[in-house]
């Protein structure tokens, strides 16, 4: 096993060195002595041998020259005298072995065999307990041959053996001396050194540089201890300074808001600041570690590729983003090399400044800039003197000025008409007071076109509170303005006619009244209602109705004088306010002119249309002193005109007021009449014209009110239609009539048809067809016996719903009848489209059929056409036998009227039926029944 001396203790080393050197010394002495002895012996022996061989050598030339082996041998044999020569050999000049001598044998051949084949080239050789010599044999300066002799040296060995005991003693003595030396060295050198080593170990372990090595004396070890203490003092000082510097450095970088870290060239962290520890190292102590050790999962420093450049002395900067507890952070990093005094880089320092906030601010600013640039609002920024510094694209779009044209020019030049800035107008306190000025102004653009702009001017202050800029925001409100104007118009003017509406009219009236109070003038209020305008709407449609209104309005407007107001109140109602009237007759005069204006036809869709008007007039102050009163009274007066047959004007009178009040009263009673059972049905029988046979009856409603007495249908039916009570009343009538018809059948023995009037309002009511169905089912009446009468106006409106409804009724088997035919528009062609079964000729025709030739002709035509469409023709209001006769001649199928019977209450009709049945049993009816 090899022992590495390097790892052995000093004591061992000393021991080893001492032992080895002792032994080596002994050996050297012995070898030296032996060598000296050997050399001495050899020299003496060589000299001796040379002397001994002298004689032989001197006698050998002749035998060799004359090639005489015998002589040669004899000469060699003289060596026998010397006991320690073992062998002798003689060679001629050419190296040929001539003769030999051997101490052991006398045989020449054997002796020759012991000789070297040729004479050796060396002169003497010592070894193998022998001395060998080669000598040259000369004669007369000529080389004759060579003599080789070999001698034993055993005597010398014997002499050397005498030295061995001495050598042993010497070796032992040296070893003892070595041991003593080692022991002394240990006391004097090793132990103090070991103590010093222990001390150094302690210092190293505790890093307590205050410690000092104990020492005494002035030997090298003490010097070593002193030197160690000096080193310690220096180290302590350096350590303290280093620690202070490091603490200072650490304190500085810890204070820095940046993330700072320093790595050595192997990527190990040498120094980091608090912020790095807080954000990056996740609670681990990064010092001495690499990124891979610190963040095994995270990617290593992606910027390490820059380090080569950094180490080449080029500081690099880069940006990086990291995800931290409170979100993503952006850093601007500077990386540079730290170099020592020799200018060699030993570390790389990175300083990363968090600019998340700044970037956010920048983003905000960019966003703001974009917002301003893309703002739908025009934005102008001026300096404190009002010189434009910035305009956004919307400004250019609105004003027509490009940014390059506008910037640098005074705002007042580009946008004249703005509220002045404080530089231009010191009295503008709002701005100087730092408040925002807002205004809506009309501003010309570059081409001089005026626009409405909503402008706000705001001062912008610097940190000292001084106004440095103004920002002027402008919004194009031209469209809004026009809308506003339009709204204003709509609020005060009628869309169809363009006339002032009710609101404006009332306003004007109030103004006129106020004025009239001062001037003591009369103000006339005329309420104008177009007669039968509803028919126009129903028959020709609303568009035509609107056109008619427009034409009428235009015609009225022409009649207005200065100061008069013509307004449309709604529907077909107009109002004229005529202030400054001296006499009431003037108002009548105006009304007369209006009525006159309506005598001419209106041209509508290529047709001439005759429309008349009804006018009511109230006067201030006589008929009221408020606009509302005056309007209401004029309305009442207009109703008077309507009631009087239309196309007329009436002044308001208190009596009219009472009539209007009655109408209100009527309406009030009407609403509860049905509950109170104040209605009853009367039935007017209908007869076949040809045979006089009773075919049915028309149900007619009657109202007897305890207060009002008997109210005629013409009074309350329109009212009921207006307020909607016609719907429940109509339903009551339908049920009642159907039940009555059922009873009649039983009474008379054959089915009678029952005709029921249906108003337009009823038909438009909720599910009229369903009602009819229910009533038929409940009553058990054959649907074919039910005849629903409706006016032709209903059909002429040509509403698809109406047509559908009539078809449904027809499908149920119900008969449909056109009432009062001939009084309206008589557009017979329309009827073809509808499933009507019966056509009732109005009583006005019947009564005139014998008087007026034209009426007779019309009646004849109606009958003809009705039959042509397979309709049954019914004549109403037959009062005389002549009339009946004429109708029979015309071909009417059925007739009703006073000639036959007035409408009969339920009980009387039952009696009538009874009588009819009896009389019928005998003969056909040919005369009136009662």
């Amino acid at each position, binding site marked *: 096993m090899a022992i590495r001396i390097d790892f052995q203790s000093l004591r061992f080393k000393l021991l080893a060195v001492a032992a080895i050197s002792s032994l080596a010394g002994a050996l050297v002495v012995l070898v030296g002595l032996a060598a000296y002895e050997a050399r001495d012996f050899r020299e003496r022996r060589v000299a001796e041998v040379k002397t001994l061989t002298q004689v032989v050598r001197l006698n050998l030339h*002749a035998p060799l*020259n*004359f090639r005489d082996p015998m002589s040669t041998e004899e000469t060699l044999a003289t060596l026998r005298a010397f006991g320690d020569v073992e062998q002798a050999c003689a060679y001629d000049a050419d190296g040929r072995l001539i003769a030999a001598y051997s101490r052991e044998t006398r045989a020449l051949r054997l002796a020759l065999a012991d000789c070297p084949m040729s004479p050796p080239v060396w002169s003497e050789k010592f070894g193998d307990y022998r001395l060998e010599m080669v000598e040259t044999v000369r004669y007369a300066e000529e080389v004759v041959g060579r003599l080789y002799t070999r001698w034993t040296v055993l005597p010398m060995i014997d002499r050397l053996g005498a030295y061995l005991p001495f050598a042993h003693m010497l070796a032992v003595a040296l070893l003892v001396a070595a041991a003593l030396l080692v022991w002394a060295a240990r006391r004097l050198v090793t132990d103090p050194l070991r103590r010093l080593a222990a001390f150094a170990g302690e210092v190293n372990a505790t890093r307590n540089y205050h410690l000092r090595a104990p020492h005494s004396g002035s030997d090298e070890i003490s010097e070593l201890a002193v030197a160690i203490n000096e080193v310690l003092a220096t180290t302590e000082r350096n350590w303290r300074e280093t620690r202070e510097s490091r603490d200072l450095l650490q304190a500085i970088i810890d204070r820095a808001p940046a993330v700072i870290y320093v790595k050595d060239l192997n990527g190990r962290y040498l120094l980091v600041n608090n912020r790095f520890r807080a954000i990056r190292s996740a609670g681990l102590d990064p010092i001495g570690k690499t990124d891979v050790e610190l963040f095994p999962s995270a990617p290593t420093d992606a910027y390490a590729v820059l380090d080569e450049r950094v180490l080449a002395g080029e500081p690099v900067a880069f940006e990086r983003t990291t995800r931290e507890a409170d979100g993503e952070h952006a850093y601007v990093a500077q990386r540079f090399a730290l170099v020592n005094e020799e200018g060699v880089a030993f570390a790389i320092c990175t300083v990363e400044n968090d600019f998340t906030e700044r970037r956010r601010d920048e983003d905000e600013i960019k966003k703001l800039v974009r917002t301003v640039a893309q703002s739908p609002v025009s934005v102008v920024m001026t300096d404190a003197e009002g010189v434009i510094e910035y305009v956004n694209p919307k400004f250019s779009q609105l004003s027509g000025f490009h940014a390059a044209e506008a910037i640098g020019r005074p705002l007042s030049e580009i946008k004249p008409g703005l509220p002045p800035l404080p530089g231009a107008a010191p009295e503008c306190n709002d701005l100087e007071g730092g408040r925002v000025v807002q205004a809506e102004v009309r501003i010309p653009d570059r081409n001089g076109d005026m626009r409405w702009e909503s402008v706000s001017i705001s001062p912008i202050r610097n940190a000292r509170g001084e106004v440095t800029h103004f920002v002027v925001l402008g919004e194009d409100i031209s469209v809004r303005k026009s809308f506003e104007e339009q709204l204003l118009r709509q609020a005060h003017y009628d869309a169809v006619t363009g006339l002032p509406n009710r609101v404006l009219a009332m306003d004007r009236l109030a103004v006129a009244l106020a004025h009239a109070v001062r001037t003591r003038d009369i103000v006339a209020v005329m309420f104008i209602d177009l007669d039968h305008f509803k028919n126009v709407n129903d028959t020709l449609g609303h568009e035509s109705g609107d056109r008619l209104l427009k034409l009428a309005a235009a015609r009225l407007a022409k009649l207005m004088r200065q100061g008069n107001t013509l307004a449309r109140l709604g529907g077909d109602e107009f109002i004229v306010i005529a202030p400054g009237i001296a006499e009431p007759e003037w108002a009548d005069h105006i009304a007369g002119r209006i009525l006159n204006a309506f005598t001419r036809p209106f041209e509508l869709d290529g047709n001439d249309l005759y429309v008349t008007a009804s006018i009511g007039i109230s006067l201030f102050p006589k008929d009221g002193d408020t606009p509302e009163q005056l309007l209401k009274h004029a309305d009442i007066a207009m109703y008077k005109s309507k009631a009087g047959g239309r196309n007329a004007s009436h002044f308001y009178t208190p009596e009219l007021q009472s009539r209007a009040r009655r109408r209100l009263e009527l309406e009030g009673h009407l609403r509860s009449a049905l509950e109170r059972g104040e209605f009853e049905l009367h039935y007017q029988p209908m007869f076949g014209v040809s045979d006089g046979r009773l075919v049915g009856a028309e149900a007619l409603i009657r109202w007897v009110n305890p207060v009002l007495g008997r109210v005629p249908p013409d009074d309350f039916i329109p009212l009921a239609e207006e307020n909607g009570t016609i719907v429940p009343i109509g339903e009551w009538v339908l049920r009642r009539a159907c039940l009555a018809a059922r009873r009649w059948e039983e009474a008379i023995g054959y089915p009678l048809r029952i005709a029921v009037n249906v108003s337009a309002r009823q038909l438009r009511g909720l599910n009229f067809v369903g009602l009819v169905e229910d009533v038929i089912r409940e009553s058990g009446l054959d649907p074919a016996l039910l005849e629903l009468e409706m006016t032709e106006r209903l059909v002429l409106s040509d509403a698809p719903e109406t047509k559908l409804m009539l078809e449904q009724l027809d499908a149920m088997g119900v008969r449909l009848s056109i009432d009062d035919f001939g009084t309206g528009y008589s557009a017979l062609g329309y009827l073809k489209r509808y499933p009507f079964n019966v056509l009732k000729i109005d009583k006005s025709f019947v009564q005139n059929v014998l008087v007026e030739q034209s009426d007779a002709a019309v009646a004849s035509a109606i009958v003809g056409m009705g039959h042509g469409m397979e309709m049954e023709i019914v004549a109403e209001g037959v009062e005389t036998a002549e009339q009946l006769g004429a109708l029979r001649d015309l071909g009417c199928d059925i007739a009703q009227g006073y000639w036959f019977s007035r409408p009969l209450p339920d009980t009387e009709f039952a009696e009538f039926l009874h009588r009819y049945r009896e009389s019928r049993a005998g003969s056909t009816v040919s005369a009136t029944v009662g």
Partner: protein
Amino acid sequence: MELAKARLDLLTNLARYVSWPPKAPELDRGVFEIVVHGDDNSWADLSRALSGKVLKSRAISVRRAAAGSGWIEADMVVLSRADSLRLRSELTNSKALTVGERDGFLEDGGIINLLLIRGKLRFEVNQTRARQAGLHLSAWLLRAAETIL
């Protein structure tokens, strides 16, 4: 071949143990001159083998003798069997070291005769004749000779 080499070595070695009287200055050419008589093949290469060698501090010069001439200035004369017979009279008067190789060479006045005894090259000398020629033969040479006349 071996024998030829041994013969050459012996010839030169013999010369080392012989001393010559000083030469007359007119005859001294500064070289050790060997004259070879006879065309025996065994002598053929003598000239080539000894040329350039030094003997007695002189460069050896070997030449073939023309018939009956050139002995006067020669230090050593090597004679073939036939020539030694033919030049018998010159042998007796020669001052050079004569070396022959036949029975009776010494008796005919030669100084050194080479012998082949049991395969080994030996020699015999005529000390009387050498003394007559003024040559001194070393004791080492005499001791090695087979016979001495």
